[in-house]
Structure formats: C-alpha cells, structure tokens
C-alpha cells in the first residue's frame, strides 16, 4: 500500500486488542494506593428546602473520614454562573452542592468520604437530612403556569430562555394561505446511559501544589480550564488524564458537580479521593436530554410546495444549567428546514427550568429536527392526499440551488439530498414495498415504511459560536513529532470514547507525513501532553481533528523533505516525496529511492543540526491549530420498515436502510460502526427508552429494568451505503457524521409507524412508540 493512500482504508483498530483481552484501562481499573472513596447523599425530594443536615451518626462509623456539605464546598470552590450574553437567555448560577434548596430527585446534598466504597455507602445512609418539601414544577406546562413554584428567585416564571426569529414574513403568508397544515411532535426525556458510568480520581500533590485528575472526558482541555477556575487554581496546577472511556455520548463533556466536589475534597484532605457513580445515580442525576415539544405550521400550495413554515418549541430543561439552556434548542430551530428550499421561516423557542435532572447535549442534541421537518412533510402529504415522496421532491434542494443559505443564515454547501433520496428509494425497494404493504393490509397485517432525510451539522467552528453568542472556540489543535529515531508521535486535543481515533488519526498522520500507519502513535487525553483543543462533540472528530493532524503532518513532511534535499545536495525538495518513510526522487517521471529515510533525516534534525540547511531550527515537529468553517453539513436519507401488531401495539423494526454522504470517509469500517451505533441509539430511544417522572417529580426509572435500552433482538439488520462527495471547505474533505444516524432513525421509525397505522386514521405524535401508547391511539378503531 502506498502511504499516499492510507486514508480511506478499512484498517483494523489498534485499540481492540487490549479491550478484547480485558486489558483496557477504564477509570475504575486504575489502582491508587490509599485512595478514599466518596458516596453522595442525594435528595429524595424534587423540590425542598434543606432545613438541617446531621452527620453525627455517619462519622461514628469506623473508616469514615468526614461528611461534607454545600457550606464547606462553597469555601473551596466558586459557583458556576452560566450567563452568556444572549438575548432572551437569563443567567443561572449554582454552587458545587446546594446550600439551601434541592431542585430534583437525586440532587446531591452531602458527600461522605471513607476508606472504602462499602463503608461510604453505609455511612451515607446514616446522614440525616431534614427537608421542608416544596411544591414541584415537574413539567414545562407546570413550570410556566401562573403562580408556579420558582426554582431560582431570579428566573421569573422559570422561563430561562425565550427566543424568536422570523424571515420572509411567514406569519403573513400563513394568515392568508388557503392551505395550512399543522403538526405536533413530542419528544420524551431520555438519557445517555454509557455502559461505563461516570467517575473520577483526584490526587492533590501538596508538594507541587498540583492536582492530577483522572476521569473519562470528551473534552479534557475545556474541562481543565473549568476545574481550575472553580477551584481557584491556575491551569498549570491542574492536569487531566483520561483513561479508556466506556462510552460518553455527550454526557462526559462539562464539569459536573460530583467531579468538582471530589477534586476539592482531595485538595482539602490532601489525600487521593475517588468516586464511581452507580447506575442508579447515572440514570437519576448525571445528565438527561431532549425533552422537547414542537408544533409546526406550514402554508402549502396544492402540489405540496411549502410557502412558509413556523416552528414553536417548548423545552423542559430540568433544574441545572451546565450548558446555556437555549443552546440545543437553538440548533434545532436554526437547521430545521434542512434539505428543503423554504423561503419564509420563523421560530419561537421557549426553555423552562423544571424540578428534574438538568439537560445537556446527547449524541445529536438536535435530533428532533429531522423528525419535525419530515413529519411535517408527511402531514402535508396526508392532508393533500399526495405521495410523501412527491412532496419531498417538490421541496428538495437541487444541485443548482447550492450552496443554499437557509433563512436562518446557515449555509448548506456540498450536500446531496436528491441523490441520497433517489438511491435510497431504489435500495430500500420502495415501490415493491408499497405493493407488499397493500397485499398485507388485505389480510390484516400492518406494515409501514418511513422515510427521513437528514442534514447533519458538524464542526461548529468559532464563527458559529460567535454568531450564536456562545463563548468559546470551535478550533482544534494537534502536533506531529518525528523523534530522533524516526518514530512518530502525534497528539490532538480530542478524546475518544470508542471512536477508533487511535487508528483513524494514525492513518491521517501517516498519509500526511508519508509513513506507514503502524509507525504512528496517537496520544490523547492528557492535558500535559495534548494541545489545547475543544474535544469530541458535535461529530467534529474527523473534520476538525483529522484536518488539523493532516496539516501538522504535512508541515513536518515539508521540513523533512527540505532537509532531505540538502542531504542529497539538491537545491529544492520539489522533486522529492516521502513514501513509507523513505525519500524518493522523481527522475524522468519515475520515482526512485534515494537511500535517505525519515530516520536519517530525523537523526540530522536532532543530533547533527550543523548539517541542517541554513535557517532551519533543529528538531522535526509541527504544531498546528485549525478553525473549521462555521458549520459543515453532511446529509443522508433513511428508510425504516416496521410491522405493527395492532392488537398489542408492538412495533417490530424489520430493516433499516441508509444512504449517507458524509464526505471523504477516513476509515469505512469505523465510519460504518459509528453509523450503526447512531441508528441503534435513535431506534432504541424512539421505541423503548424513557426517563419517566410523575407529576410530583418522582423519577420512576432508576434502573436498567425500568429504563430499557434496545438489545440485539430489537435492533434490526442495518444497511448503510456511503456516497462520499468530499467537502470542499475542509482540508481533510470529511463533513462529519455519527449524529445524523440518530436523527434519521427517530424520524424514519416514527414515519414508518404512522404509515402502518394510516388505515386507522391515527397519527403518533409522541415518543416512545410504546405498545401502551399505540394501543391508546388504536382503541376503538381496531
């Protein structure tokens, strides 16, 4: 294999071996002699005043070092103030642990530190907290109702964010339109549920005045900045080290309160302190996601063309803001129109704080967008009696329309929605399905096929954040270093949790530099080693991380060839190339080996620098930062085929087909794995998963017996076809992927169920598509 063609090969993952034989090193596998263990005491109330905390019985237990509450923590840490200057968004502040009030079931009120985890849990059960129960606001409607109990004194009506936008006078068009189609979409609360729960190990070094903090983090550098700030330390006093991570999906980005507490306790006690979250804590109190209700109104022409569209969206955000509360909803609203030409659009988005676990981004935070847009298309087709494919086609962007600026200003460049849809209809055997469906209906068997087109945003460059008034950057950083022996080390600010970065980035560096992939080692997740980058989120790994490593590797190659030219007594390096670590020279259109190797170049660069061409500094390394375009968009079309048992309401997904264009594919095997995982997460969420709270804010889903995740039996065979049109706006040519699968699966499966139920004249507009819910729609109709 020529090293110029390593990107794009399905190289097997180098991280697999250790994971397959039980030699992975996840957080809890790290032995730290003398470490104390922490257990949190958590609120059994959704909303209550803390009257008193009595830990006298707990500290009596042998092996307990201490019990700490919000009062002590407030001395050692600064509060989190989430207050970006965004119009319509109110600032919210929270302390490390609550001082006077708990805001949801599972809110940590005290922290027990003990010799081992069993003792810490025993003692936690003996901490007596006296609460004065308060009325809870446990839903969006309850929170914004007149006279609702307030979570924060300075958030009136619990309405933390209200943003509106309109372009092209949609309201006027809707007021005068002959045909207006309305549709509703209620997405339920779900949670990330990585198989490895959260946890951390803090080691304060009193001599060095330095904290080493180990945890699974997708974004180690921003986490370090935040941790240092909140502990009132310098960034140079904090080192984050990430071991292997057993899944993250967005739950392991921001610094959450337990982690801050553990770090502060290590410094206070001058001892290593560790915490491992149990599954119940993870389900009740880590981070939740996605509870959003949307309504759309579309003015349409008789042939299904959308003349104007409005979205209203209500978000139940939960109690705490570790992210700006408007952020996820805003992305939904900004990209809603996706692959369609819609010249008049407006939105109205409200976010309420409620007495539930706080929300954060989860793999495809904007997941609902595709379901809402495609469900609106389906509603239009139903209303007009048209084929839903025909309605899609009349609105779909064509090549001639591109690049297309959506009304919100988002620019979709290299997308291929029409090509993906055409190919999908052929591969999913759409026409044959319609025939089969009709025959089956005759015999009382109800099948459905649902389509969903997806436009998936990724990269989120700095210009995106600036435009959205969110503080921070969207750049990524990396370095590539050839060591004196010719060995290659490289690093990037991202941290993976199963993404295969060690393999994919080795491919990128190998191709950029001109060596074999096996010779490249990627180092991530240690802030003393890795450059300051923004981490893994928003499907930006390949595009932001891959691009920056390619740029750094190319810079090293240029320097290596300059040195080689001088070693060969040539004036320029123009006729030289590096292949598999050897320098070749072009002579009469033939590349031939020069005998100079990367190792010999490195030797000169480090150990014999007097031989370097004038002006070149010793060493062979490059450090680059890369700020991607504000957004790159990939796109896909999904088809999901279901069978609905109308007597029981049970949905069986029979197959799922996707045609996706995520640009240049760096490693097709790994990309397909990400696509499968995303589709499965979307299907599982739409069909089974749900964080259930009752009216009083009691969480009824504290175990995997209650919060059910799809198994191999519920997930269907999946087929993914990649149409890779390289992005013209990123050096590496990829456009981002791995979230779109979630978006497409939710929309496609819901449209499929509604297609199956069409003979009964009912439409599912809530998730999950549980047997109970579907039966409730069908009652009296079957």
């Amino acid at each position, binding site marked *: 294999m020529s090293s110029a063609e390593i990107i794009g090969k399905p190289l097997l993952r180098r991280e697999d071996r250790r*994971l397959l034989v039980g030699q992975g090193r996840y957080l809890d596998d790290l032995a730290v002699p003398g470490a104390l263990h922490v257990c949190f005491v958590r609120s059994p109330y959704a909303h209550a005043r803390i009257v008193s905390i009595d830990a006298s019985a707990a500290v009596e*237990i042998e092996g307990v070092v201490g019990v700490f509450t919000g009062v002590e923590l407030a001395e050692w840490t600064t509060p989190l103030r989430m207050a970006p200057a965004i119009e319509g968004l109110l600032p919210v502040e929270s302390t490390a642990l609550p001082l006077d009030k708990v805001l949801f079931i599972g809110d940590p009120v005290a922290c027990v530190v003990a010799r081992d985890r069993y003792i810490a849990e025993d*003692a936690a059960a003996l901490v007596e907290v006296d609460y004065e129960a308060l009325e809870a606001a446990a839903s969006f409607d309850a929170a914004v109702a007149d006279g609702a109990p307030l979570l924060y004194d300075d958030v009136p009506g619990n309405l933390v964010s209200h943003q509106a936008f309109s372009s092209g006078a949609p309201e006027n068009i809707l007021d005068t339109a002959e045909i207006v189609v309305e549709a509703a979409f209620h997405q339920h609360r779900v949670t990330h549920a*990585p198989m490895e729960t959260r946890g951390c190990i803090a080691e304060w070094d009193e001599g060095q005045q330095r904290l080493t903090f180990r945890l699974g983090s997708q974004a180690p550098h921003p986490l370090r900045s935040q941790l240092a700030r909140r502990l009132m330390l310098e960034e140079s006093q904090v080192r984050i080290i990430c071991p292997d991570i057993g899944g993250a999906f967005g739950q392991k980005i921001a610094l959450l309160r337990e982690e801050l507490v553990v770090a502060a306790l290590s410094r206070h006690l001058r001892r290593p302190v560790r915490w491992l979250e149990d*599954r119940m804590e993870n389900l009740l109190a880590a981070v939740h996601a996605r509870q959003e209700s949307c309504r759309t109104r579309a003015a349409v022409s008789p042939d299904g063309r959308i003349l104007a569209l409005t979205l209203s969206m209500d978000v139940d955000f939960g109690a705490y803001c570790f992210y700006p509360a408007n952020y996820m909803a805003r992305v939904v609203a900004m990209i809603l129109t996706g692959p369609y030409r819609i010249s008049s659009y407006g939105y109205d988005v409200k976010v309420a704080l409620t007495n539930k676990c706080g929300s954060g981004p989860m793999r495809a935070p904007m997941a609902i967008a595709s379901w809402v847009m495609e469900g609106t298309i389906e509603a239009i087709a139903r209303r007009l009696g048209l084929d839903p494919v025909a309605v899609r086609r009349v609105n779909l962007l064509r090549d001639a329309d591109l690049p297309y600026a959506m009304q919100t200003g988002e620019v979709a460049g290299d997308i291929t929605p029409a090509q993906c849809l055409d190919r999908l209809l052929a591969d999913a055997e759409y026409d044959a399905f319609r025939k089969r469906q009709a025959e089956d209906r005759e015999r009382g068997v109800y099948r459905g096929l649902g389509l969903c087109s997806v436009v998936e945003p990724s990269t989120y460059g700095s210009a995106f954040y600036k435009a959205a008034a969110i503080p921070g950057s969207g750049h990524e950083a990396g370095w590539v270093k050839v060591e004196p022996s010719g060995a290659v080390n490289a690093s990037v600010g991202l941290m993976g949790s199963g993404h295969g970065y060690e393999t994919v980035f080795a491919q990128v560096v190998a191709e950029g530099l001109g060596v074999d992939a096996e010779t490249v080692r990627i180092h991530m997740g240690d802030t003393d080693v890795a450059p300051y980058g923004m981490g893994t989120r928003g499907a930006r790994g390949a595009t932001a991380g891959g691009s920056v490593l390619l740029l750094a590797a190319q810079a090293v190659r240029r320097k290596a060839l300059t040195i080689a030219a001088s070693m060969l007594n040539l004036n320029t390096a123009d006729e030289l190339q590096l292949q598999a670590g050897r320098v070749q020279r072009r002579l009469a259109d033939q590349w031939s080996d020069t005998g100079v190797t990367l190792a010999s170049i490195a030797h000169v660069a480090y150990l014999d620098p007097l031989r370097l061409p004038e002006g070149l500094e010793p060493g062979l390394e490059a450090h680059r930062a890369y700020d991607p375009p504000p957004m790159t968009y990939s796109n896909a079309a999904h088809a999901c085929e279901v069978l609905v048992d109308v007597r029981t309401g049970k949905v069986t997904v029979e197959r799922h087909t996707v045609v996706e264009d995520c640009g240049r594919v760096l490693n097709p*095997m790994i990309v397909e794995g990400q696509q499968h995982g995303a589709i*499965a997460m979307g299907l599982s969420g739409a069909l089974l998963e749900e964080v259930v709270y009752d009216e009083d804010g009691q969480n009824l889903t504290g175990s*995997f017996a209650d919060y059910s995740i799809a*198994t191999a039996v519920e997930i269907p065979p999946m087929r993914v076809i990649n149409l890779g049109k390289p992005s013209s706006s990123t050096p590496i040519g990829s456009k981002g992927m791995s979230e779109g699968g979630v978006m497409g699966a939710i929309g496609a499966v819901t449209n499929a169920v509604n297609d199956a139920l069409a003979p009964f004249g009912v439409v599912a507009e809530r998730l999950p598509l549980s047997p109970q819910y579907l039966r409730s729609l069908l009652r009296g109709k079957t």
Partner: protein
Amino acid sequence: MIVEAYERLPIALTVNGRSYDVTVEPRRLLSDVLREDCGLTGTHVGCEHGVCGACTVLIDGRPARSCLTYAVQMQGASITTIEHHGASGELSALQQALHERHGLQCGFCTPGIVMTMQAWLDENPEPTEEGVREALSGNICRCTGYQNIVDAVLVAAGRQADMRKAGK
C-alpha cells in the same frame, strides 16, 4: 438504621485455574472481589443489578452475573474471566472475529460479550442469526448497534466449525 460491623470470612477462590485466598465480608460481590482483591479488572460492572451483562464470568463453566453473586458463595467453584481468553497472547476465534468485524467500539461491554457468547457457541456450534441475537440479548451494548457483533459471532462459529473439521 444500624450498621453492624460485618464478620469477614476467609475464602479460597479458583480463578482461571489459579487460587486466590481472600478475606471478605459476606456481602461483598464477586465482581468487586475479582476486580479489587484479585486485580482482574477485565470483568466490568455496568449496572450492578443484573441487567447489562457486562460483568458476566463463567462459574463452573456456565455464564453468570458476577454482580449478583456473593464471593463467599464461590468457595470451591471454578471461575473463568476474560483474562483467561488472551493469556496465551493469541486471540480466540471469537475475539479475532470481533476485531475483524469491528464488533466493539468503547469495549466496555466486550469482556461480558466474549464470555457469554463463547459459552453459548460451545453449546450451539451451528447458530442462526436469530439464535445469535437471542443469545446476545442479555448483554447491552450502547455503542455498536449489535449488527457487527452478530456478524462476528457467526464468523467465529464458521471458523470454529472449520477447525473442528480440520481436526477430524
């Protein structure tokens, strides 16, 4: 609530053919003893309530949830963990197939899946896809969507059958 000091009992465990003498409280979970007292951290704990399958080990050759088993019950039993599959430096047919078919991402569920499916393959040497999915349904994988794991198990079954034939 009163917390009593628990009596600690000495037990002898046999893990991967090696014996370990440990002294444990009766309530101590086998998963914790394997990971903390024996230093065998390949067995992972994903839920501690018997649903996810991450902690699966073999007890006297049969798959069992080590998070639902007390270590004191294991006196005299023979336990096999993931560390057994790989001790030789070679991957088993199933591990190799999982590698080639990209049947793992974060890898946290993987040891439990290898333990479960190897035991199942030993009893079901000619599986169907449906059978594999059914057998796998006691293990949650949040990353892969299962498709590649299912394929890998089928590939491993085929290779094991070839090896058996070659051995005959």
